[in-house]
């Protein structure tokens, strides 16, 4: 069976215990002889490197920012789930497991999700021990709040900066290992390729990476016994997203190009509460935490005339009387109300706006705190959400205490990613993927406050075990060298690709290091310029195509259009992109061009995956497959599987392998939040 998920034997609740009981270990004296590469310093990467370093392995960790503390986990706002049941409200490991599977619309692997729920409590213990200043009540005990898709309060939080505090905890642990010498830190260093080499038995294994030093442009080689990719998600393929500017798919994609399967790329999470788009110069979208839906109520005017008057600026939200407001989530989903899962809330907002009830530019709805301020008082609301309100006010220039926020869905998280088995190992032996970079735990839709949980579960409590199981055999290999033909070939691939990207405009003398002497005179440049475009020009165009034709609602026709338009744009990119500067110095334009070249391939794969999945599930909504009242309609008979794609070479269609999903401990039902 390929790919093999390697789920351990035994009843669900015993699988992880059984695994740990029977796994192989490495003795303490041997650990320091084993080298591990970790790519990425977010929650998953930093926690993995810190834990592996503490065990005694030698770790090299890489990030593309100037400090490991900048990784985009830092921007997570709302919280982290854990089945602690501190609130005595009926929570348990089993319930967190069930909520996560259901939230993912029955498209996640049972055993992985159960393990995630099982270790969730340990994460909170670990973080508190590190000094993460979680919110507390007056007794000094930890406080919780609710998130979408759950009827219990299991979310731990540190104001609206939970991701920041968890990441700083992991960063502290990582810093400690750096000072102890077990971890070596490489900043402003980007992994551009994976090195795969045959061992003595002829098994192809991950043996290292090629890194570009982003200050000097030098290509560097790093060899190791295992490689962990924790490089985050690929939401920036849509250009506008809540991701950081430097978040990209290239490290994961390099692994995919070298043979690692890429699973469920079409599962993209559109977050319902983001600040709406306001101009074409816009570089990113800002999230307003899901936690706001604890107290904020979402509405649009009941009457179209009111919506139109608001759009014309003749009326404001406070002019609309209570009985003329349509709290559409509370109306459609009385049981969960404003706390339905993200995919459901996003589609409902789109439905209202498409029907003509949108406010602002027409692509926005209100998130209103009037009732919460009346009920709790302004002080309490300020204490809970102050920093989010401030952030909103700075961007939009209106006061959310006085006027409701305007929000609209935006690309936020990608459930798809590198295919991994139960050990978080990809289809390349020795290559592991953790955090958002893998596909494993969220199915077709991730619940709020579960990304932080998964990243830290992978890094603190899964990889230290499963990597050791793999490395136990690698002690016989000895030091892995980087002066091998496999490294030569990988470096050559990188060099050629950089030359190709720099050379497109370079052959006309428009790029700094073309080295071609017959470049046109300056007077001729302006005529050539009109044919050439910046990387951002192409990235924005790609984003518009993906959002329009492969976004919140997809159809066979829209996907065919997307496929064609992406291919045309990609062809134009390779003829007319202008990458200025030189490859041997700091050059953000070159970095962006490299990322975009990968996004084109990924975009084609997302479209192919969305096309083959003839059903609606979670974040993947095919308009052909919906119920009479517009809800997702799954096809469990034909699509209860993971689609794992295999790279076939540049400009070749990829082939799909399937991993069937079996649910033994869970009853499969229609996802109903009414």
């Amino acid at each position, binding site marked *: 069976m390929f790919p093999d998920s390697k789920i351990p034997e035994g009843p669900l609740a015993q699988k992880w215990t059984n695994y740990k009981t029977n796994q192989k270990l490495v003795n303490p004296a041997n650990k320091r002889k084993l080298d591990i590469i970790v790519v990425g310093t977010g929650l998953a990467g930093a926690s993995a490197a810190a834990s592996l370093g503490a065990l005694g392995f030698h770790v090299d960790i890489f990030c593309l920012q100037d400090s490991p503390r*900048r990784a985009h986990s830092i921007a997570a706002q709302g919280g982290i789930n854990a089945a602690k049941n501190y609130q005595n409200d009926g929570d348990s490991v089993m319930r967190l497991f069930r909520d996560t599977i259901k939230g993912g619309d029955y498209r996640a692997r049972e055993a992985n999700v159960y393990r995630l729920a099982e270790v969730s409590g340990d994460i909170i213990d*670990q973080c508190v021990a*590190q000094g993460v200043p979680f919110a507390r009540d007056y007794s000094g005990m930890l406080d919780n709040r609710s998130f979408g898709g759950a009827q219990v309060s299991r979310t731990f939080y540190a104001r609206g900066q939970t991701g920041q505090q968890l990441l700083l905890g992991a960063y502290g642990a990582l810093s400690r290992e750096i000072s102890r010498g077990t971890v070596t830190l490489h900043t402003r260093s980007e992994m551009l390729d994976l090195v795969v080499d045959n061992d003595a038995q002829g098994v192809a294994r991950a043996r290292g990476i090629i890194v570009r030093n982003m200050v000097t442009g030098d290509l560097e080689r790093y060899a190791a016994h295992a490689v962990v990719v924790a490089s985050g998600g690929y939401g920036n393929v849509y250009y506008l997203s809540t991701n950081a500017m430097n978040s990209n798919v290239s490290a994961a994609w390099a692994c995919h190009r070298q043979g690692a399967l890429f699973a469920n790329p079409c599962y993209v999470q559109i977050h319902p509460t983001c600040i709406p788009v306001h101009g074409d110069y816009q570089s990113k979208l800002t999230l307003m935490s899901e936690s706001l839906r604890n107290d904020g109520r979402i509405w649009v005017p009941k009457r179209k005339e009111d919506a139109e008057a608001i759009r014309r600026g003749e009326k404001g939200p406070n002019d609309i009387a209570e009985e003329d407001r349509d709290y559409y989530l509370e109306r459609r989903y009385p049981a969960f109300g404003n706390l339905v899962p993200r995919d459901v809330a996003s589609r409902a907002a789109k439905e209202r706006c498409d029907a003509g009830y949108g406010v602002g530019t027409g692509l926005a709805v209100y998130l209103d705190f009037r009732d919460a301020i009346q009920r709790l008082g302004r002080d309490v609301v300020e204490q809970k959400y102050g920093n989010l309100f401030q952030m909103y006010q700075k961007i939009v220039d209106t006061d959310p205490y006085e006027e409701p926020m305007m929000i609209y869905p935006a690309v936020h998280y990608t459930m798809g990613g590198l295919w991994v088995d139960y050990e978080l190992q990809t289809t390349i032996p020795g290559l592991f993927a953790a955090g958002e970079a893998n596909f494993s735990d969220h199915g077709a839709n991730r619940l709020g406050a579960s990304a932080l949980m998964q990243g830290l579960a992978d890094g603190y409590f899964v990889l230290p075990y499963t990597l050791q199981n793999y490395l136990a055999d690698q002690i016989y290999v000895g030091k892995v060298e980087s002066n091998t033909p496999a490294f030569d070939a990988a470096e050559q691939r990188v060099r050629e690709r950089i030359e190709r990207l720099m050379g497109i405009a370079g052959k006309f003398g428009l790029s700094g290091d073309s080295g071609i002497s017959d470049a046109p005179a300056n007077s001729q440049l302006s005529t050539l310029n009109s044919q050439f475009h910046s990387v*951002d020009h192409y990235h924005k165009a790609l984003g518009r195509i993906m959002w329009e034709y492969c976004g919140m609602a997809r159809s066979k026709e829209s996907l065919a259009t997307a496929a064609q338009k992406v291919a045309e744009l990609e062809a134009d990119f390779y003829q007319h992109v202008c990458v200025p500067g030189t490859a041997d110095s700091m050059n953000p334009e070159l970095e962006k061009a490299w990322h975009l070249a990968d996004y084109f391939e990924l975009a084609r794969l997302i479209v192919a995956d969305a096309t083959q999945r003839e059903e609606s599930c979670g974040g993947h909504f095919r308009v052909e497959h919906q119920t009479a009242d517009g809800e997702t309609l799954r096809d469990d008979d034909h699509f209860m599987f993971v689609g794992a794609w295999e790279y076939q070479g540049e400009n070749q269609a990829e082939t799909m392998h399937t991993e069937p999903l079996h649910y033994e401990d869970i009853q499969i039902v229609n996802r109903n939040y009414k």
Partner: protein
Amino acid sequence: MNFTLHIWRQANAQAQGGFETYSLENISPDCSFLEMLDILNEQIISNQQSDNSTNQQPIAHPVCFDNDCREGICGMCGLYINGRPHGNDDGVTTCQLHMRRFHDGDEIWVEPWRAKAFPVVKDLVVDRSAFDKIIQAGGYISATTGGAPDANSILVPKHKADEAMDAAACIGCGACVAACKNASAMLFVAAKVSHLSLLPQGEPEAADRVRKMVCKMDELGFGSCTNTFACEAECPKQIKRQHIARLNRQWIGHLFKGGKA
């Protein structure tokens, strides 16, 4: 809105830098400062001429500046704008500064952080790895993965947890150092010392932590604190000077116990 920009350009750490002047037109007031720089870079690429440039290279290079999350939390961006770190708005980072804070026709001077401990890498990009080194010297609680007690077994009074959170909100951007006439890192170090020593978990290592972090700060070339509190005024996360007082108390306690200065 129209602007005249004077931007610090420097090819690399060794090169001589200088200001270059650019003009930008039709900028939306809703545009963020970094989006305005995106537009400038787009213009530089499409013009491919180094207009007004003092260096006569035929190929103009876009302006390098650090940025990432663009929502004020990663701490990656940081520009010295018209003589103020993160510009003329309070409680924001450069990425959260909007052009509506300027007037049409303004001249805007844009510089990198200026501090000995933060050398320029290129243009507006500086090397802040000194901050990482201070944290590595002891800015953490030593809690090896696994074996932590149940989270609610450690009770933290709410006001202490809140105060620790106030200090922990530091994003490590370096504005405090850039604002300080002595380029002191005191507020950055104090915020971490305060965050960890306010919590019972951080108590066992508190004395050692303050010693190691302060010594490392001195070693890396940051200046001394002379209590002008420019750092507090310019901190985008509005971290308070009280944390410096707490650090000083702990530092003096360390000296009284016979520790080395």
